């Protein structure tokens, strides 16, 4: 979230799209209710299903799953054409005026320089025109046809209301109602907040959907303001924290991109991450990448990391492809190229698409280690559970270890919520039997591996023997030791402009104290400030709200630097005064000569407005980017493409003659998986998976209360489809995709309606995901039996939200 849960109450318009907060985040959703009740907010919901969020909305518009870019792209066109943009914000705080390279172009669904063979682009021209100093050229009249603003308008030229309606299946009047309501927040005293979740991420175009949403918010001037922002309502309790800590194949910590094999020396690596300003005098905070990185290496490799050995840079693994993501890993596993796999609190047999492929792949492993508080289907993938898991254990040679971990209630430490708050929790009891904390499980395993390498040698033991592991009990590191380590400390006295700012051994107060000379160590630069000399800031419990706008700065600790609303300098005009009193957040105090207000300024606190530094301090431009430059696989502007499995015979209605752009031209699809994609003739219905308010993924089927309130698997179909197929409420149905089938009870509702796409009726099918062959709830099929093995072209997040199925009445006898 750019903003935070309580701040939702400050919104004037709330758009929930690609999510269902009332059911998936019920307690956070109370702030939506609060905004409606006390801020007169309008709640708009756009979703394939009439969800419980929709049921309390002021307005609901149906949409065909996977067509969000068409809907939002049309909105961008509408905002520009009707001049409902926050013009001063757009001109100064976005890249609208910057001129784009002449070599950049787009035609018939493709940007220039596409290579169909590799399904990728040469991105050379996806940049601004620059002067001899490397600064972007600009045209403040926004008249130049090469400025971002004009190119943006041209890009969405075809996204007329009628076109959007025929792609999305949303009636034009409903589209207009949503667009008009959002446009009402282009004024400086009103804001829209956007709330989304997996309904936007789990598409082959997920990242571009979210980018389009961000562009809408920039045009409306809603980023950095109270009640604004682009707000990802994230899933697991610490999914934000693990992302921040970079537990992903292409990340170090704190969003430092991991090195690739072309970056053979430290300077090449750091140069690519320093990001020099693209407009004069901008902050471009990544210029401090050296300090972040060197401090990380000092935390990881201690005294071994020295200037003369490039701070152990060679020890880091180098990537030979953009990602070793989960889909890539299971593709390699299916070919027998992976021998071992660790699943720490993760159930991939249920969580990765195409269960048959996942199951086949796991059976090729030599060893599998499951570390979990609960039994999981993955740990028991070898067990025959009849129709639900039809395998022969005697044929599966994988050695499987199952290690019991403590649960939250028995463990101490911090988790990061969706609002970037690091909240500390304490252990209430010891765990069952011999269960151990995750930290102790890994601590013991690491020290054992290290002993083996120390004693027997082996392949490149240096980074194992050299990893700093200076815990009082090396096999049982404590939460406090680890938290202090990721915060960081001074290794020797730290000076800033000749002044001593931190003595040797002290905890650092924030990332401003990090140095690139080896005098500081910090395991995750954005967490610097969480455990300072003043103690554990994450355990703070002062819920005072002095400004009365929900900014409880004394509760827990938020990265970065306890800032609660990102880009908050954009809540003030160029001259440093708030856009409006209603939305005031931080402002320039001309007497004290510093930024002040109800939040920690997300900005250099003494940078006077006259200095001309812009609010988006992490971007080299200093402003928000409508033009993504080289950051995205599909192109600098989002384009609507169909899901891999699309119910539309004509393909992409925007470019009906070009079959190359039916679906995402940059999507990576493995050959065998492409063969496993179904067509609309065989599988005519558009399906989407979803979650229920009573369940959490595949955990709560093990939980008595939840197994009682939502005991049995079902699928949801509309009345029209029920009538067509002779299926009524409570009948058993068989739902199949090219990859397999599930059987479940049918729930026939008014909540999912057939939708008209072009001149064709498309029925939609809803598939809740929570059942499996283990637990207290009734046995069911893992829903990923049906889903396609393809991901977003940037993140490879699987397309769980849009695929094709067939539905038949089940005659095989129902429950087994």
């Amino acid at each position, binding site marked *: 979230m750019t903003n935070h849960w309580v701040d939702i109450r400050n919104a004037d318009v709330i758009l929930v799209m690609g999510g269902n907060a009332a059911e998936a985040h019920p307690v956070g959703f109370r702030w939506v209710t609060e905004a409606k009740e006390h801020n007169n907010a309008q709640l708009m919901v756009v979703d394939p299903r009439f969800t419980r969020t929709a049921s309390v909305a002021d307005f609901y518009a149906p949409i065909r799953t996977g067509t969000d870019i068409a809907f939002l792209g049309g909105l961008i066109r509408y905002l520009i054409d009707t001049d409902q943009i926050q013009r001063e914000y757009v001109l100064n705080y976005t890249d609208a005026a910057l001129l784009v390279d002449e070599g950049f172009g787009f035609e018939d669904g493709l940007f220039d320089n596409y290579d169909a063979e590799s399904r990728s682009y040469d991105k050379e021209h996806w940049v601004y025109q620059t002067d001899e100093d490397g600064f972007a050229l600009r045209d403040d009249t926004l008249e130049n046809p090469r400025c971002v603003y004009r190119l943006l308008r041209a890009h969405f030229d075809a996204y007329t209301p009628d076109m959007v309606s025929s792609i999305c299946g949303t009636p034009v009047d409903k589209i207009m109602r949503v667009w008009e309501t959002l446009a009402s927040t282009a004024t400086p005293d009103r804001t829209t907040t956007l709330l989304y979740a997996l309904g936007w991420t789990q598409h082959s175009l997920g990242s571009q959907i979210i980018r389009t949403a961000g562009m809408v918010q920039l045009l409306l001037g809603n980023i950095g303001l109270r009640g604004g922002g682009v707000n990802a309502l994230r*899933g697991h309790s610490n999914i934000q924290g*693990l992302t921040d800590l970079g537990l992903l194949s292409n990340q170090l910590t704190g969003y430092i991109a991991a090195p690739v094999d072309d970056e053979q020396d430290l300077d090449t690596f750091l140069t690519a991450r320093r990001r020099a300003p693209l407009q004069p005098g901008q902050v471009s905070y990544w210029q401090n990448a050296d300090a972040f990185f060197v401090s990380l290496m000092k935390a990881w490799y201690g005294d071994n990391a020295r200037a003369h050995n490039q701070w152990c840079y060679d020890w880091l693994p180098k990537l030979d492809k953009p990602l070793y993501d989960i889909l890539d890993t299971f593709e390699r596993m299916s070919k027998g190229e*992976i021998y*071992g796999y660790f699943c720490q*609190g993760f159930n991939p047999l249920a969580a990765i698409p195409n269960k048959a492929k996942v199951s086949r792949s796991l059976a090729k492993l030599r060893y599998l280690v499951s570390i979990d508080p609960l039994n999981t289907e993955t740990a028991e993938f070898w067990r025959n559970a009849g129709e639900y898991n039809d395998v022969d254990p005697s044929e599966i040679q994988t050695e499987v*270890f199952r290690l019991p971990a403590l*649960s939250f209630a028995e463990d101490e430490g911090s988790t990061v919520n969706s609002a970037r708050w690091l909240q500390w929790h304490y252990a209430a009891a*010891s765990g069952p039997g011999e269960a151990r904390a995750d930290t102790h499980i890994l601590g013991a395993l690491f020290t054992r591996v290290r002993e083996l390498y120390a004693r027997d040698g082996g392949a490149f033991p240096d980074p194992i023997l050299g990893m700093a592991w200076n815990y009082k009990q090396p096999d049982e590191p404590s939460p406090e030791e680890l938290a202090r380590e990721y915060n960081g400390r001074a290794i020797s006295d730290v000076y800033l402009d000749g002044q001593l700012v931190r003595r040797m051994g002290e905890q650092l107060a924030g990332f401003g104290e990090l140095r690139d000379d080896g005098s500081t160590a910090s395991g995750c630069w954005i967490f610097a400030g969480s455990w300072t000399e003043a103690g554990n800031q994450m355990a703070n419990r002062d819920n005072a709200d002095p400004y009365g706008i929900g900014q409880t700065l004394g509760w827990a600790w938020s990265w970065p630097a306890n800032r609660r609303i990102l880009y908050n300098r954009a809540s003030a005009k160029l001259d440093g005064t708030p856009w409006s009193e209603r939305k005031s957040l931080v402002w320039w105090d001309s007497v004290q000569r510093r930024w002040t207000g109800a939040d920690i300024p997300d900005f250099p606190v003494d940078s006077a407005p006259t200095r001309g530094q812009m609010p988006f301090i992490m971007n080299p431009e200093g402003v928000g980017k409508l033009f993504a430059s080289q950051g995205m696989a599909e192109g600098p502007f989002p384009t609507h493409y169909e899901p891999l499995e699309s119910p539309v015979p004509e393909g992409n209605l925007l470019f009906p003659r070009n079959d190359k752009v039916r679906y995402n031209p940059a999507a990576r699809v493995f050959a065998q998986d492409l063969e496993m994609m179904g067509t609309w003739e065989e599988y005519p219905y558009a399906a989407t998976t979803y979650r229920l308010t009573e369940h959490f993924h595949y955990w*709560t089927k093990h939980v008595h*209360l939840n197994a009682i309130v939502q005991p049995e698997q079902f699928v949801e179909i509309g009345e029209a489809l029920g009538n067509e197929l002779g299926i009524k409420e409570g009948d058993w149905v068989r739902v199949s995709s090219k990859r397999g089938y599930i059987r479940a009870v049918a729930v026939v509702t008014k909540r999912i309606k057939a939708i008209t796409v072009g001149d064709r009726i498309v029925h939609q099918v809803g598939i809740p995901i929570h059942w499996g062959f283990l637990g207290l709830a009734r046995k069911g099929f893992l829903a990923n039996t049906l889903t396609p093995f393809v991901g977003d072209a940037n993140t490879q997040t699987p397309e769980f939200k849009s695929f094709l199925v067939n539905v038949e009445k089940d005659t095989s006898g129902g429950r087994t």
Partner: protein
Amino acid sequence: MTIQVTRRGFFKLGAAGLATSSMAMMGFAPEAAASSIRPFKLTHTKETRNICTYCSVGCGVLIYSRGDEAKNAHQQIIHIEGDPDHPVSRGALCPKGAGLLDYVKSPSRLKFPEVREPGTNEWKRISWEEANERIARHIKADRDENFVATDSEGRTVNRWTTTGFLAASASSNEAGYLTHKFVTSLGMLAFDNQARV
């Protein structure tokens, strides 16, 4: 003077710390005194501040457990409820959070390290020592066999791609940070967490 004390009000007084036995002596016994066992549920319990383990709203929870802190006495968690001081959740919990106690007490909780040997159809309990030893040897054998120090162009790459690791997005930052150190020290690249799905 007669004071009418409703059962609900009586609980409030009790919660405010008045000794209930002396209340009764003073003649303030509530009606339906026989059912007044429940209000004592949380007395003599330890209150622990925690955060709900499910979604990322991060609601505050209070966990109540029984048992003294003696070395050989285990705390028993008997009740979990919302933390009214929490600025986001203000004491509320959803249908998932309301069942947290049943999660902690789930019969599916794992208690001991176990192994399923190749081709067999059962779990076998093993010690932590055996589990560590066997897994560490798997790691070393695979890594020693498949570690790539330099690629075909002679570049230093120091990667190991034949074992992968999926990290837990409900574990703590401290566990996550340690996991990153563990994985990186080995040169592992097939590394992800739930953020990827």
